[in-house]
């Protein structure tokens, strides 16, 4: 066997070489998620790890105004606190729950009517923090008590690999972030996800005709991208920053060809809204259709920090959110992958009950979350938090459902993982899954 082949060769050739354990490259060693049983060749064709369930996280950055998202009906306190913002024509009532979806969320209402949208009300955590950054850290780490270290999904991936060897890491492709900034949620103490904005630019370009192959070879050599002996030994340069960069370059190089191939193969049957958010979801759908062995996809939608003149911006965001998710769900259905995928939305906090002088709202606390998918048992979960002035906490809603209960449900009932060690405790789960 050629011991100088690249890890990428391994990726495309599959696992036929595994018997040669002494020359097994680092990449195969570290892909424990892909290898429940290394000698069972067909495993390479199935999703990695325990199941095929895929989680798509939708991060709504800036603090979404929950009170203009899931709207309390016939509530005088609501209209007193929000004389202008509370006037939302044609809200989409959710059966007899006493609440309605924002009219821009028609795409989600359709999923609700199909029985597959869970609206979880009053989600938050104790001693809410109203800083965007701290609260986002809390949601992403699922740890309100300690300085940020790693993310809740990163810990999930860490937990899939029990090996003591630090090189024994999951395939980075197990989690894919669409965007230029990798979220803390996906960062484990061992695991690191991959990120890209656009599959087409997700590659290294060797500039000159004629020397391309030679350049590529030298590029691989000077970046330690080949499986040479010293790489197998996991040698460190002595400079942790340099090691970190080389490790990332390796992850990038290994996943580049596959992701570009997979995303160019599938052309969706439905048309996605022409928004960056819609395009992100389309890329996710292409990767799912292409059978990429990814368990968690992470997309984001920003602009929710509506301190001033909230209505037009928030209306647009609701429309963008719902139209994107609606197209995504229809696309999955036409692929026949809808039962494998669950979508969760969250924001770092809701907003203040009373509107401010600028027809906007300041930072608040509890807010609703959406969970949808063909395996989701639709409905409204929990009551709308009370808006009576005496029930508010410094002008903000009191939460009744800890967000870690939602995480525990997704980790335990959906991803089939033991959530307690990942979340640092036992949280009541919700009956979200059919």
């Amino acid at each position, binding site marked *: 066997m050629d011991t100088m082949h690249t890890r990428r060769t391994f990726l495309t050739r599959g696992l036929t070489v595994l018997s040669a354990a002494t020359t097994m490259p680092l990449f195969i060693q570290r892909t424990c998620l892909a290898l429940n049983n290394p000698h069972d060749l067909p495993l390479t064709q199935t999703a990695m790890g325990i199941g095929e369930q895929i989680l798509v996280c939708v991060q709504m950055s800036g603090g979404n105004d929950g009170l203009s998202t899931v709207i309390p009906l016939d509530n005088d306190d609501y209209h007193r606190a929000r004389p202008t913002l509370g006037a939302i024509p044609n809200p989409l009532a959710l059966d007899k729950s006493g609440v309605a979806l924002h009219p821009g969320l028609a795409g989600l209402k359709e999923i609700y009517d199909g029985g597959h949208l869970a609206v979880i009300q009053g989600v938050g955590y104790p001693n809410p923090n109203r800083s965007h950054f701290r609260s986002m850290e809390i949601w992403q780490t699922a740890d309100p008590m300690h300085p940020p270290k790693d993310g809740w999904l990163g810990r999930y991936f860490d937990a899939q690999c029990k090996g003591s060897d630090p090189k024994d890491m999951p395939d980075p492709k197990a989690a894919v972030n669409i965007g230029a*900034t*990798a979220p803390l949620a996906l960062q484990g103490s061992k695991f690191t996800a991959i990120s890209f904005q656009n599959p*087409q*630019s997700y590659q290294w370009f060797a500039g*000159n005709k004629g020397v391309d192959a030679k350049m590529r070879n030298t590029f691989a050599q000077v970046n330690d991208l080949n499986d040479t002996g010293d790489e197998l030994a996991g040698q460190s340069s002595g400079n942790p920053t340099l090691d970190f*960069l080389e490790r*990332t370059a390796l992850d990038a190089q290994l996943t580049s060809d596959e992701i570009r191939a997979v995303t160019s193969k599938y052309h969706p049957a439905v048309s996605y809204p022409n928004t960056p958010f819609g395009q992100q979801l389309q890329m996710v759908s292409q990767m799912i259709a292409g059978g990429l062995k990814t368990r968690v996809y992470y997309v984001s939608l920003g602009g929710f920090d509506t301190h001033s003149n909230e209505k037009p911006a928030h209306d647009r965001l609701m429309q963008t959110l719902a139209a994107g998710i609606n197209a995504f769900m229809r696309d999955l259905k036409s692929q026949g992958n809808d039962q494998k995928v669950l979508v969760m939305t969250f924001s770092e906090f809701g907003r203040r009950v009373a509107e401010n002088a600028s027809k906007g709202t300041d930072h608040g606390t509890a807010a609703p979350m959406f969970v949808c998918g063909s395996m989701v048992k639709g409905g409204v979960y929990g009551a709308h938090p009370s808006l009576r002035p005496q029930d508010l906490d410094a002008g903000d809603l009191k939460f009744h459902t800890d967000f870690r209960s939602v995480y525990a449900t997704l980790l335990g009932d959906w991803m089939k993982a033991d959530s307690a060690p990942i979340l640092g405790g036992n949280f009541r789960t919700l009956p979200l899954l059919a």
Partner: protein
Amino acid sequence: MDNPLQPIWESDPGRWDFSMAAHLLRRAGFGGALGETEAAAGMGPEKAVNQLVRFGNVPNPGLEPLVFGDLTNPIDQGGAGGARGGGRGGLLRGMSAEERKGFQQIEQAAQRAKLEELKLWWLDRMVRTTRPLEEKMTLFWHGLFVSSAATVKNTYLLYQQNELFRKNAAGNYKQLALEVSKNPAMLIYLNNNDNRVQHPNENYARELMELFTLGIGNYTETDIKESARSFTGWTNVGDQFVFNRGQHDEGIKHFLGHAGNFTGEDIVNIIFQQPACAKYIAGRLVRFFGVDEPPAEVVEPLSRIVAANRYEMTPALLALFGSKWFYSQEVVQRQIKSPVQLVVGALRSLGVPVSQPAAVDNALKLMGQELFNAPTVKGWDGGRAWINTSTLFARYNLPAYLGTGKLPTAGKGAQGASMDMRTSYAEFDSGWRPDVDLAEGGVSTTDGVVDLYIKKLVGAELDARKREELVIFMNGTGDTKSHMNDPLLPDNDRRTRSLVHLIMAMAEYQLA
């Protein structure tokens, strides 16, 4: 007791060389051209640090203000709303709905165009300045007192704010915080222009303490509410700060243990009496210029220097850049260059101007640092957060962007147009002449070419095995000692360009 801020010329007299000078120029600036680094290496650490930090005396010829034309004209100043106010409202009222729509489209196009001009103007300054720390500190403040074009929507006001940062680049932090609190771009960005007595808007008050001066944990939610009341009525008309007394809350406010009918000035004064404030800015300086996780034993003494000098930045910068800690193994080549530093440094080290502004702007977006459009009010996290698989490819492709001007478009969907990056980069940034570099460096062998560009671009020794690979690439034969043809053949010229691309596509080149 050991003092990490002891000047290197006292702790290690005589210790100073090319790679230390290169380190200083990378951190306190954007990396020097070969000649600059050699000059700094020749003058010794004390003089080199002083010349960089006391840049007020350094002539900076050929850098002009950005021209905006008629500031009462929203098209000229690149934005809606009119920097000098007035005219636009009346203009719009006199229009039909259709005319208004057309006007607004023209306005938006003008805004985009002017913003591109502003970005290019600043990048060009960073590339050509003889006062690199002036621009580096401007970038520091730009990432600390964040305002983004997406919200401000007026290029002139962003330019005005940028000039404020430059004027106070190594000046007084407290003075700057006060001026920022009255800065129109900031008043718009954090909605203080909507902060009125009836319903205070807390946005500015919160970020002033959380991100600009104290850091989380050094104030309460009540302090935010009370200081927001104190800033009521602080607003702008066009490019001017205005105190609108009718919208100001004249009541008693309780803030950080003080009580009174406070205004914004009082709030800034009280904030800057807090010991946390000097510690906060010292931590930010150490993180920006030093290491991702600032050690307390460096931040503490630096914060004492900041406090003792009443928030003057120059003494703190002199202490930091002169310190023996700054030249220690835990600092040198441990920081990841910001995208702006990567781009500006590449151009400075090759001695060429920004010749592909659209490509450079796009590359910066892909690398996660669009000037005047920080992702959030927190600015850019920096450090390892610059790096993921997405941004790393963008970085390693940088020479292709600079050289060909052909770019993969950011934000396009998966169906985005395919691109041809394979055109020759013979036109690599108009003006870069490898043959001139080689002649100046007196270089005629392949290993000589490799060593010349390692010195120019990395400024430190490279791992021997990697150097060998580059030499093999240059001579194409596997013989590491073969001579290059002299005069250079077209192929050697192209090879040299490819060599520069390869060096820039290495982990070592990402290190500041």
